[in-house]
């Protein structure tokens, strides 16, 4: 590992659901780091705890134990006021169901995080145009979500997650509601954003196709990290995809079932 500053550190994260006699350990001591500019994927079967992990990082739920450090600050211990400042400005979100407000136009949706945080629109004008042309949504900026296709919606949502120039974008199954073609376009764009401007992205997915765009993948099962794949330099996406499938086969049909 190069001696770079760590962007995000997850330290022995634990999350329990339920009370006393009926405790489910969704996360049972997960630790990893994310370096600036990484495109990290998290994969795992249903119930493995991957969304719980993302939600802990996203500050949507509080971990039972352990810490999440963003630039060395423990964001999992923030109170709601500090959290509000972090959400939408330091952390960008991308959801499976887009989570666009359907009574706001595309542009209004994209600018929403800025207005919430009281940023002057004039400063964001350039950024908005840049993102719109990058995601090819300039034409639909004044349309309402109901007038857009699923792929367009998700690209608008992606632009929204990036408008405030966050340190990290958290994506929860961003391709889950998209058809293969739209999914591919979106992933290409996200990868491009990661490559060209070094945006750090953390993506949860169980779609190996989407995951093959990542630079590194953590596999989670039963609340612990079970495996890690790193895309080699110059490794083609297809080859990486094959390697992912192998791990998944092991996860789903291999040792897990035997055990």
């Amino acid at each position, binding site marked *: 590992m190069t001696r770079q500053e760590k962007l995000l550190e997850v330290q022995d994260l634990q999350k329990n659901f339920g009370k006393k006699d009926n405790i489910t350990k969704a996360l049972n001591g997960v630790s990893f780091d994310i370096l600036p500019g990484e495109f990290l994927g998290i994969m795992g079967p249903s119930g493995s705890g991957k969304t719980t992990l993302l939600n802990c990082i996203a500050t949507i739920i509080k971990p039972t134990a352990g810490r999440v450090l963003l630039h060395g600050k423990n964001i999992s211990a923030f109170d709601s006021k500090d959290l509000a400042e972090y*959400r939408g400005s330091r952390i960008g979100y991308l959801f499976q169901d887009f989570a666009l407000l359907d009574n706001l136009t595309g542009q209004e949706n994209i600018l929403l995080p800025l207005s919430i945080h009281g940023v002057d629109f004039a400063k964001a004008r350039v950024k908005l145009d840049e993102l719109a042309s990058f995601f090819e949504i300039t034409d639909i900026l004044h349309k309402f979500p109901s007038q857009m296709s699923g792929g367009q919606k998700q690209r608008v949502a992606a632009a929204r997650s990036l408008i405030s120039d966050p340190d990290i974008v958290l994506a929860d199954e961003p391709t889950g509601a998209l058809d293969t073609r739209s999914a591919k376009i979106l992933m290409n764009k996200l990868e491009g954003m990661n490559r060209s401007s070094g945006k750090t992205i953390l993506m949860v997915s169980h779609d190996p196709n989407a995951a093959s765009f990542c630079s590194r993948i953590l596999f989670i099962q039963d609340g612990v990290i079970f495996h890690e794949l790193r895309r080699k330099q110059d490794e083609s996406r297809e080859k990486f995809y094959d390697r992912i499938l192998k791990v998944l086969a092991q996860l789903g049909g291999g040792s897990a079932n035997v055990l």
Partner: protein
Amino acid sequence: MFSRLIYRNANRSRKENLIYFATLVTAVASFYIILSLGRQDVILFLKEFESDAIDKLLSLMPLVYLFALLLLFFLILFANQYQLNRRSKEFGLYLMLGMRKERLVLQLAAEGLMTSIFALIGGILIGAFLAEIISLTVSKLVGQGIIGHQISLSVSAIIFTIIGFLFIQLIALVILGGRLFNQEVHQLLYEQMDKKQDMGHFKGNIIHILVGIVLLGVAYWIVLYRFMDFAGLLLFVALALGCLGTIFFMRGFGKLFGLLASLSEGKSTKGLRTFTLRQFQENVANKSTSVAVTSILITLSIILITNGASTIIGFDSAITRTSSLYDFTVHGDHQKVEQFLTSEKMVPYVEDLNLLEIGKMKYKDEQGDGNSPSSLVDWSELREQLIMALPSDYKEQLLSGEMQGYTISSENHEALNLLGVLEIDAKAPYLIPESSYNGLLKAIGEKSLNLHADEIALYFNPDLLHMDNLERMPVLDRILEKAEKEGQSLMSIQGQTISIRPSTPMRGLVADRSVEIHSAFIVPDPMFEQFLNTETYVSYWNFRIPQKLQDEQGLMKPMMEARDLLQSSGFQFESYLQNFGRQLFYVVAGSYTTLYVGFLFLIIACTVLALQFLTQMKQTGQRYVTLSMLGATRKQMKTSMHRQVLLAFLLPMSLACVSAAVGIKAMISFVVIRIEDNAFLYPIAFAFACVVILIFVIYGVAVSRSAGHEIDKLRWKPNID
């Protein structure tokens, strides 16, 4: 198990949805109030004097009740629909778990019954309490302490309230249950507000708003300037145009509002401004018709409440006894009546006993020769003077012979009224002997007239001539004083010149209505004997309740006692009570129904606005979750929500205020309602305005609190892996 579920659900819907339950309670209370009207103190009191009129009024009440039933039916339907929408997911779940639809509908009916019973208990209690308060207030306010208080609880009102309320609840549930029955489980489980953002074409919206403004303008114009044309039929046209205009206006406005939102986005992105505007726009644009309807309802309610309030304000001036002097007038045999009134049992009640004699003047030639008999009175000089005193446009009309008849009205110039009255009366005027009138003057503490043998005074009935000042008639007095100074004679009777005494104080001649004359000549007693047409002679005994007794017991109690004594005597009599009762009846009939319907409209409008807002809030709850994910604080979201509530209430309210102002202006200028400047005007107007605003504020706060509750309840629910 099944019954426990019903019980729990009914309890829950009461607690969770206070507005729904409050709507039901309001409906019950308003039914009860209208139905128990017959038990109100004022009505019971009035029954003694104006039983026919009261019966007529009470027989109208079932119609008002039916009207209220119809209106509240829609309200209940709306409230139930809101409630069922809230719970559609739950119903879907029941069906998924294998509950049959019949059973679900049955369960809903049972729950509805449970809720209805609670609403009935609450509503009847509140209604009875309100009816009691209204009864007490009204009898205190207008009854001047005479109207005794009785508990107004009415069993038949309760029964009909229960029947009516259950009936509309049943129909509403049948309709909604039927709809539920036909829905698919999926629809129930995943119902969302997936309406397209129908922004319409820009041009279309401009046209909508223009059409709306034009229609409203025409309606206003008709109301302001053509109010009475075609026997008031145009009013209905105006009403229809106004309603249509409001609907168009709201439709265009809601969509154009989006333009405002998109214009503002370039300039400022502060906080949730855009979001607030868009939410409001969605609320108005998607529900423009019902927003328009609430606006119309508020307009009507403001007009009705103003009308009702002005009746109450007017009542004060109607019962102040400016011109009426005597409390009783007894009719009958001269001596016998006098004997009775001076008898021991009556004496405590009698003061200023005075005999009023009155009769018409003879004609010059009683026998006549086929033509109408000619008059003894020649008042051409006076007539000329009066014509000279007319405003110039009337003068021309009169002199050119254009003017054919006269109407006596408070709007007219004094000289015109006098002229009109004298033209009719002076031919064979009523005569009152000076001694009779001196008795009256003595009672009000004025000097006797002491007329010369060739002098008379003119009497004009202050009630019929709408006099502002009872002591003077400025125009007439000026003419008379001038004539006196210049020694000019304005009148002659049977060739003899007569002078006329100026500045005679005028009062009502009798207690109520037995003498309905416009004018009379007050003449010296010998002249009365000389010119009286004996066939027309009548006499009345007038008296007042002694001031001392009034100070001790109030006016009404001794008056009622005297009335009972007189009734047992068998004499014909009338009393000020009848006058009072009649005025009171006009007020009660005029104000009760208008105020009732006015407040009903207001409450319906507020409830519709409230439920509509909360429905939208519920359906778009997910948006607030997204907002919080993007970093919006609860405080920001609540601020946005409060603004939305404010806008949602203010928009229909502001248009309604404009329309209502126009309506009220028209009603004032066409004297449908008379706003007189008296001491009660401002307190009462202020009180009613406060009540209206208070109702709005209560609803606004209730909505804000419920919506705030929804925001507090928002939790980010993690997706299942």
